[in-house]
């Protein structure tokens, strides 16, 4: 063998040896297995509470993307401030991919209850979308806790519950259009997070 060939082969072997220490591409992609999926379904963290969402909207937190998965008619009649309407049958459309499959934002799905949003969550999560959460209890819970908060009965009132109730009451004023000046509530705005569209995939090959 020629000396040149020996050098080239040695360099290739050294290069290949170093690749052993690189992480798997698949693990970087975070393709989900059924065991992982089952464990994620049971995780409490995949749900966002209505309080958390209300707080994010009130404080203009740009890291949340709210997705209303109900049909267009329901969406038009009522939705949460700043929410985007993407129905179950359109959720996998290419145009929404960059909106939903982003690690920089927390995507929160909601429907009237939790079941429809849960279906969408499952569909997205099985397609390796990350950072997707569901608003616990959906709009029913939203109305119950944020729009019309119920005062806890006196013998159940703890400091934490009282604080929560106060927040909800202020949030209710906020969402029903009344401004309060307690310091917790800030100005109302419809700031939608700006999601940069990814570059178009390069296609083609060699012959």
């Amino acid at each position, binding site marked *: *063998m020629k000396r040149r*060939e020996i050098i*080239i*082969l040695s360099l*290739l*072997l050294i*290069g*290949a*040896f*170093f*690749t*052993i*220490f*690189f*992480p*798997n*591409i*698949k693990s970087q*992609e975070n393709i989900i297995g059924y065991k992982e999926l089952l464990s994620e379904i049971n995780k409490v963290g995949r749900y966002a509470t209505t309080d958390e969402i209300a707080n994010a909207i009130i404080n203009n937190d740009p890291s949340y993307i709210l997705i209303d998965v109900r049909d267009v008619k329901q969406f038009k009649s009522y939705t949460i401030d700043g929410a985007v309407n993407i129905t179950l049958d359109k959720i996998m459309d290419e145009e929404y991919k960059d909106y939903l499959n982003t690690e920089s934002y927390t995507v929160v799905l909601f429907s009237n209850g939790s079941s429809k949003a849960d279906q969408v969550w499952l569909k997205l999560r099985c397609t390796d979308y990350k950072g997707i959460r569901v608003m616990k209890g959906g709009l029913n819970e939203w109305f119950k806790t944020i729009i019309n908060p119920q005062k806890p009965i006196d013998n159940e009132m703890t400091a934490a519950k009282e604080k929560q109730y106060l927040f909800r009451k202020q949030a209710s004023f906020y969402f029903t259009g009344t401004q309060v000046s307690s310091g917790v509530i800030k100005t109302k705005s419809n700031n939608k997070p700006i999601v940069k569209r990814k*570059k178009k*995939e*390069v296609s083609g*090959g060699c*012959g």
Partner: protein
Amino acid sequence: MGPLYPDIINPELNLLIGFLIGIGFGFILEASGFTNTRKLAGIFYGYDATVIKVFFTAALTAMIGLYTLHYLGWIDITKTMPTTFWIPTLIGGVVMGLGFVIGGFCPGTSLSAAATGKVDAMAFIVGVMIGIFGFILTFGSIWEGLRKSGNLGKVDITEWIGIKEGLFIFLFTLIAVITFVIFQKWQDHWKKKLSQDDINDLGL
């Protein structure tokens, strides 16, 4: 996809770069003797292993290089992963192999050889064009079913075997290097048997 395209290198410049790389590629093919049909077909008849050595080296360089660039974040290798259709791939591979051994060229080398004035390469290109247009024109009526058959999805061999990608690359490189050495020894053995006239005649 990468740090340069399309923000720094625009599509027009990209075409120009592709053109220049193509010229370089053709030049290297010619310089390596890849426009000589006898050298190319030598692997099938057992007197020259240049083809297998070059393709192995190219495949290894591309494999290690792409994987490293992906690790460094310069490219996104996941965007290059094709869907595997095993039936048309197998049939296409057999057709390509037969064309290679009968005609003595593969598509790229035929263009380089035609550029050097080889008439057989020009005839080969005519055949390639007949094949391409014949396939296009009859695709809907004859080939579409075959083209879409045997869809395995986006599979890769490391997932199938269940080993780490880097380890597979290392083992594959090791096997390729051993094969390279064996073919080299085999070629040296054959060349000893060939007379100087044979070597000159084959253009080796």
